[in-house]
């Protein structure tokens, strides 16, 4: 069967084989893809003299399995979520990356000590720490404004439609935290059937008023259109709308759910050596700092946070906008990759069933 698969995709492969002498990076598009293009792809290409280009996907982890199984890998580097990086690595879909091959921090700290815990896995290296937060339109609330995760679910105090990501991940956690579960216990509770019921019961309370979004760029759009008064979103997208486009959006950091975004190399990438060079460059202290000047996702190296970071406009200080800023971390939860690698199917199936009811 595998042979036939290879055969049937060989024809398609012919069309692409001519373009092998170019590094292809796949990311999420929008403000985020742009940040990686400007901070990593273009400067690396200029410094190394090797052509490189960026392509977009709704989720770059999705095509990797298809490409590797068909033996027709057309991308060299993919920017993927942490749980996907673990899962694909376990399935042998990614090239291993040796932490010793990564450069030491700008201050000389070896990479193994410089990266934050968990930021380098067997097959992937963190490009930033991003977060699921919720944000509201400041013009819609006079007087009291939402400040806690619970406020997101409080339709009496803050009436109006809510935007929520369509999927179980990060939504169930938010529901539990809003229901009073401390961040440290969220995954323990969610591991029990009662905990799952509790999360869905909490979601039931706002279900009729929810507008569901899927692509990251939809969330700020729903907010800007006045379709919702508050929405969950990737924090960088809200930052981009608020700072670069002057939208009256305010992020609520209470109950934020953060995780590492990872650069990885699909198994059999056409330019594997160059891909490794690219990742070493992009995840160096300077590379991580450069990305953080374009979008408010935190660098995962200690050395990258030592000096003050400024947004590309040259005046906005980035530190308070990063998920890793201490004042934003008072009630924060790190996504458990292990939990979602295991339960993704089951909980999303339940989520879909709940959604359709």
């Amino acid at each position: 069967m595998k042979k036939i698969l290879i055969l049937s995709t060989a024809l398609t492969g012919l069309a692409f084989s001519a373009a092998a002498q170019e590094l292809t990076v796949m990311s999420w598009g929008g403000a985020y893809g742009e940040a990686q293009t400007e901070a990593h792809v273009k400067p690396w290409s200029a410094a190394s003299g090797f052509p490189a280009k960026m392509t977009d996907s709704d989720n770059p982890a999705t095509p990797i399995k298809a490409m590797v199984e068909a033996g027709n890998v057309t991308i060299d580097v993919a920017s993927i979520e942490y749980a996907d990086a673990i899962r694909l690595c376990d399935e042998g879909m990614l090239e291993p990356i040796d932490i010793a091959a990564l450069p030491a921090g700008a201050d000389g700290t070896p990479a193994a000590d410089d990266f934050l815990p968990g930021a380098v896995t067997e097959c992937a290296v963190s490009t930033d720490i991003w977060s699921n937060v919720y944000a509201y339109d400041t013009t819609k609330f006079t007087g009291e404004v939402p400040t806690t995760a619970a406020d997101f679910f409080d339709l009496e105090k803050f009436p109006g439609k809510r935007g929520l990501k369509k999927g179980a991940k990060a939504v169930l956690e938010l529901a539990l935290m809003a229901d009073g579960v401390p961040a440290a216990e969220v995954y323990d509770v969610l591991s029990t059937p009662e905990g799952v019921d509790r999360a869905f019961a909490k979601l039931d309370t706002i279900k009729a008023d929810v507008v569901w979004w899927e692509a990251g760029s939809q969330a700020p759009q729903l907010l800007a259109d006045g379709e919702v008064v508050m929405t969950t979103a990737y924090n960088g997208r809200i930052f981009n709308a608020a700072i670069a486009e002057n939208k009256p959006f305010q992020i609520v950091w209470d109950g934020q759910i953060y995780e590492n975004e990872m650069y990885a190399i699909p198994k059999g990438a056409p330019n594997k050596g160059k891909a490794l060079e690219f990742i070493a460059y992009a995840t160096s202290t300077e590379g991580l700092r450069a990305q953080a000047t374009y979008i408010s996702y935190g660098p995962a190296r200690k050395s990258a946070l030592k000096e003050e970071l400024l947004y590309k406009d040259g005046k906005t200080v980035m530190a308070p906008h990063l998920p890793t800023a201490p004042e934003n971390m008072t009630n924060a939860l790190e996504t458990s990759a292990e939990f979602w690698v295991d339960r993704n199917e089951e909980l999303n199936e339940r989520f879909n069933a709940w959604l359709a009811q």
Partner: protein
Amino acid sequence: MADVTAAPLTTADGRPLKAALAEAQSRARRRAFLLVAPLLAFVVLTFIIPIGQMLDRSFHHDGFSANAPATLEWFDANPAGTAPDEAAFAALAADMKAMKENKTAGEAGTRVNYTLPETRSLITKTARNADDLAPPFKEAFLAIDDRWDDAAVWQAMRSSASAYTADFYLSALDMERAEDGSIRRVEENGRIYIYLFVKTFVVSAVITVTCLLLAFPVAHLLATLPMAKANLLMILVLLPFWTSLLVRTTSWIVLLQGEGVINEFLVALGVISADGRLKMIYNQTGTIIVMTHVLLPFMILPLYSVMRVIPPSYARAARSLGATSWTTFRRIYLPQTLPGIGAGSLLVFILAVGYFITPALVGGADGQLISNLIDFHMKNSNWSMAAALSAMLLAGVLVLYWLYDRLIGIDNLKLG
């Protein structure tokens, strides 16, 4: 009578005519075959093989069976329900070491995880620590994770041990296997697929009927107007047809959303209050409105092509014989448009059943169709589940096609 033997007919060069004819015919057949060979190869490569692969995936997943040969042997030697002994753990340990070596623990774990959640990390974690596995094996396994003592885990591995399984079809029918291997329906809050299949067919039927009601007068108008005017109108029909699907869908979002053009207009007119804005998008209504518009040309075009060639004299004859206009329409005109109605309806219905981008964009929570779940499983790399759902959808459409053939006859189909 036996004496009369006709000399066999021969060609000019003396060969038997029958053989020469057969040769000439087979040459012609070969040439004809060579002419269609490129298309045949194309269809086989891009259509038959992928569909075959898809069907194969829906009941074949060797993620565990191909990577755990020793454990499989133990399962074969011991009947279901046997508590795992030291030999079982030893076999599993050997497999774990091989999995670590070949990086196949993820694949194996994924397969078992479909049967029992949370076994994926159990297997990958154990494989990662496979170097610690030394006799006595049972203790070594329990030291890594105490779930290895759980009979359910072993039962899950046993049911994953065959590369061929109906489990994906069971899941697609909202059923599951209990611990003792019997089949039961899943808990009520997990049932979704049957509901969505029914909903997909109902929504598609509603869209087909709406399309027919809207398209019939338009097609009739197009067919009866003078050519110059008809062509102008035809461009209006075709223009949206040529516009990108995404552009059309997004413009509907602009029109229908809460703060959109239609709502703003109605509020300005005072028909509805600012708080009572109509919910026309991000729900089933939105799905039906937008899909009806997107699929309308597929109904208009076959109808138009059939109506254009209906001679007006039949209707005139009916009228002159005293039929009312309604009777003329019902008994003379409508039956003649049936091939167009059939073709258009079948086309719209089959397209609607498999549509996913429009419901994904404007469907919100309750406007999702089965295709959106197939997409969901594709994205989550559960291709087997996606394949099982697709195969069921394919079967459903084939049944409808067969019904259509029985009721109306596929010969009557007229696409243009």
